[in-house]
C-alpha cells in the first residue's frame, strides 16, 4: 500500500513536470529556473538548520559503542579503530564508517535449524554491496554533473568521466556508475518488496525516496542514451541558472524538465526526511566519541545538582545494628 502511494506520488510529480513543460515558456521558466532555485535554497538551508539543531543539543554522556579492545595495560594490544582512545582513532573510525560503511559490512543473517537445534549466523554482504554501489555511484555522478555547472570543464571532471567510462561501450559512452546506481537502487527496492521483514517495517516514505532516486537516474539515462539531447543547450541552461540569469532553458526537451523537477523534489525532501542520515552519521555519539572515559572527564552541561543517600543518613538509620555488629562509627 505504502509502496503504491509513493509510486503514484513520484509518477505524479514526473507527469506534472512533463505536462507543465509542454504548455510553454511560462511554466518552463518555473520548472527550469524558479523551482530548482528554491529547492537548492531549501536543501542548503534545511541541512544547515538540521545540523545546527542537532549540534546545539547536548551530549550528556560519552557512550561510544566499543567493537574492539580498549586501551588499558600497555602490553595488551588495543584496537584504535574499533575502540578509539583518542581523536586520531575517532577520525579513523568515522572515516571507515562514512567511506566504506564499516558497520554494515559486519552484517550477518540468522538461520535456525530446529531439527538440529542449531542457530547459525551467516555473513551477508549483499546489503553492504548494494549500499556501497548506490552511494558511491551517486557521489561520482553528482561530481560528473559539474561539467554542466563550470566553464571551462575542470580537469578532474574529465578524469572522472574517463575512468567512469573506461570500457568505452556505446555512444555516448555508458558510465559504470550508471549501472551501479540503478542496480544498487533496484536491490534496495527489491528487498523491501520481497523480504517479509523489510516489507513489514517499510513506511511509504522509504519507497518514496527510492522511487525518486530511481526516477532521477532513469530520466538521466533516457536523456543521455535514448533522447541524446543536445548537451550544449543543457549546459547553457544550467550555467545560466547557476549564474543567476533568469533565462528559459531552450532546446532541452521534456525529459530535462522531468529530471530537474525530480531532483528538486529530492533536494526539498532531503532535510526533512530520513535522508538526513548523511549528515547525521557524523553526529552519532556511539561512533564519534573516544572510548577514553576513565582518562578524561566528560562534562554534562545539565548535570543535575542532586546527591544520594549520605553515609550520615545511613549510619543514623542503622546505628543500633551497626553498634551491635561492632562497626566503627562516625558518631557514637
Amino acid at each position: 500500500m505504502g509502496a503504491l502511494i509513493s509510486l503514484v506520488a513520484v509518477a505524479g510529480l514526473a507527469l506534472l513536470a512533463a505536462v507543465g513543460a509542454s504548455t510553454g515558456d511560462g511554466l518552463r521558466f518555473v520548472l527550469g529556473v524558479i523551482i530548482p532555485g528554491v529547492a537548492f535554497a531549501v536543501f542548503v538551508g534545511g541541512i544547515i538548520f538540521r545540523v545546527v539543531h542537532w549540534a546545539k543539543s547536548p551530549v550528556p554522556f560519552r557512550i561510544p559503542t566499543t567493537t574492539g579492545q580498549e586501551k588499558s595495560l600497555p602490553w595488551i594490544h588495543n584496537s584504535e579503530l574499533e575502540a578509539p582512545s583518542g581523536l586520531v582513532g575517532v577520525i579513523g573510525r568515522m572515516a571507515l564508517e562514512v567511506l566504506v560503511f564499516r558497520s554494515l559490512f559486519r552484517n550477518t543473517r540468522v538461520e535456525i535449524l530446529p531439527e538440529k537445534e542449531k542457530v547459525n549466523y551467516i555473513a551477508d554482504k549483499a546489503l553492504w554491496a548494494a549500499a556501497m554501489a548506490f552511494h558511491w555511484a551517486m557521489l561520482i555522478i553528482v561530481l560528473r554533473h559539474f561539467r554542466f555547472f563550470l566553464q571551462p570543464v575542470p580537469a578532474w571532471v574529465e578524469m572522472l568521466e574517463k575512468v567512469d567510462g573506461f570500457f568505452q561501450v556505446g555512444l555516448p559512452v555508458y558510465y559504470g556508475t550508471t549501472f551501479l546506481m540503478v542496480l544498487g537502487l533496484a536491490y534496495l527496492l527489491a528487498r523491501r518488496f520481497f523480504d517479509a521483514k523489510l516489507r513489514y517495517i517499510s513506511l511509504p516514505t522509504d519507497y518514496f525516496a527510492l522511487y525518486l532516486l530511481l526516477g532521477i537516474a532513469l530520466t538521466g539515462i533516457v536523456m543521455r542514451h535514448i533522447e541524446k539531447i543536445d548537451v550544449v543547450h543543457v549546459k547553457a541552461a544550467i550555467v545560466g541558472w547557476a549564474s543567476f540569469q533568469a533565462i528559459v532553458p531552450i532546446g532541452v526537451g521534456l525529459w530535462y524538465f522531468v529530471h530537474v523537477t525530480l531532483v528538486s523534489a529530492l533536494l526539498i525532501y532531503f532535510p526533512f526526511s530520513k535522508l538526513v542520515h548523511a549528515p547525521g552519521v557524523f553526529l552519532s555519539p556511539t561512533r564519534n566519541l573516544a572510548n577514553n572515559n576513565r582518562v578524561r572527564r566528560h562534562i554534562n552541561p545539565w548535570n543535575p545538582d542532586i546527591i544520594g543517600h549520605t553515609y550520615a543518613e545511613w549510619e543514623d538509620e542503622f546505628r543500633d545494628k551497626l553498634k551491635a555488629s561492632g562497626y566503627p562509627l562516625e558518631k557514637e
Partner: protein
Amino acid sequence: MAEKSPQELIQIDFTPPPRNWMNPAVDFEARRGTWSYPTGVKSLEYLGMPNPREWSPTDADWKLPENWQQIIHDGFKDLLKKYRTLEVFMDICVRCGACADKCHFFIGSGDPKNMPVLRAELLRSVYRQDFTTAGKILGSLAGGRELTEEVLKEWYYYFFQCTECRRCSVFCPYGIDTAEITMMARELMNLVGLNINWILEPVANCKRTGNHLGIQPHTYKDNVEFLVDELEEVTGIKLDPPINRKGAEILFVIPSADYFADPGTYTFVGYLMLFEHIGLDYTLSSYASDGGNFGLFNSAENLKKLNWKIYHEAKRLGVKWILGGECGHMWRVMHQYMDTMNGPADFLEVPVSPITGTVFENTISTKMVHICEFTSDLIHNNKLKLDKSRNDNLRVTFHDSCNPARAMGFLEEPRYVIENVCNHFYEMPENTIRENTFCCAGGAGLGNDENMEMRMRGGLPRGNAVRWVRDHNDVNRLACICAIDRATLPALCDYWAPGVDVSGIHEMVGNALIMEGENERTTDLRGEPLVPEKEEQDDV
C-alpha cells in the same frame, strides 16, 4: 521455568503478522511469561516517583493520570532538549533492517516488534506525529502515530523486552543505540507510573541500605563471615576481610549478589583470597555495598543518586583509589557515567598497583580499576603463585558480558586471566563472542521469574552457542564477569545447554591460588572433587 520445552521453543515463526504494525494490540493475559510485574506502591512512594497504585498489565484500566498524554508529550520534549542521542536517533534511521536479526529477543521470538528498528519505531512514530512538520501534516503517511493508550501499553510490553545490550548498535550503519532509546522510553513511562518491580524495588532497597538486595549492615557482616568460614573448611585458611576500615589504600566495590547467593559467592571468596595472597591494603564497605546500579536501566536521576555513594564513601574512608569487582552493568556505569555524574574524583590518587608498581594510566580520571585489569597485571608480573591444574576438572568457555564488551572494549583482560588459571579454555563461535556477544536475556531488569519464557527465548542465541562448545569441546563451565549473568545464566544453561555451570573468573583464580599455610586442596571452592570421578577419566 518456561512451560514449553526447548524443542518446542526453537520452532520460531518469522512470518510477520498480516496486521500493519501501526495498529497496536498486546494481549497481556495470553502472553504471560513474557512480561514483568509493575512496581509495587511501597517502592514508588519511597523513591518519590509518580503515580504509585495497585495495578496489573492485564487490567483494562491502567489507572493513568488524567492528562497522561500531555505529561508524556512534555517529557519527550524535555528529553529531546537534553539528549542529542535521542534527537539524532529519532531522525536518521533509514529502516535498512541491518539490526533486525541481531536482537536475541527477535531471534528467539520471531515477534517483529522485537526487531530493534521496530522497537525504536514505537517511539519514533509518536515523535514524528508530535515533533516533526511532516508528521504533523501527513500523519501516518509520514510514519506518524498518535499516542493512544494502546500504543502506551505496547511501549510497556516491548521496552521491557529489551535488555539494553547494545548488540544492534554494533551493526547499525549509524550507530543507533537501542539501549539509549529504551532508556528514554522507560524515562517517559516513569512519568506516568509505568515501570517494573524488578527494577525499582532494588533501586529503593539500594537507596536505603546501599545495595539492591536490601542487605542491612549487620547481615552484610554475617554473610561475609559465613563465606569466610566456608572457605576455611575448604582451604584451611582463615581470612578476616576489613569492612568500613578508614585509611585503607583501596576501596573494593562489588555487586551485592557476590556476597549473597551462589555462584557469585565463590567469586567473592576468590577476590578475598587474591587480596590475602598479595597482602593488599583494602577495605570492603557495607554502605557502598553495591557497585551495581539498576538506576541505569530506566532513570538517569536514580542512576546518579545510587552511584553517588561510591565516591562519597571513598572520600569518607580516605582511600587512595577504587577497585571494582566483576559486574557488567556496574562497569558500564563506572566507565561511562560515574565521572561525568559524580566526579571529579580529585580527592583520590591515580591508581597504582602497590604490588607491581604499575600505574593504571587508563583510569587517571575516574581512579577506578577493574579487578580483571588488576589481576592481569599481577599475573603478567609473576606476582601470583598459581596451580592451573586445580581447575583441570573444568573445561571453560567465556561469555562476554554485554556492557564490558560493548561499552568498555573489555575483551582481552578476562581472557588473559582465564588462560593463566585454567588449562582448558575454549571459545564459543565467533559471531557470539566479543563485540558480537549475545545477552543473557535477563539484563536491564528483566531477570525475574515471571518473565521466564521471554528470558529463555532471548537466551536461545547464547544458550545455543554454549551448547555448541559443550558438544564439541566437552565444556562444563561458563565463565563470565557479570553478577546478572551469574544470576540468570544458570537457568538459561539448564534449559538450553544442561550440564554447564556458571561462575565468575575470580572463583577460578581462587581455585588456582596457592595460599600460604593452606591445606592440601582436594576440592575446588564449591567442594567438588579436584580429580574427576573414575568413570569420567576412562572417557578421556
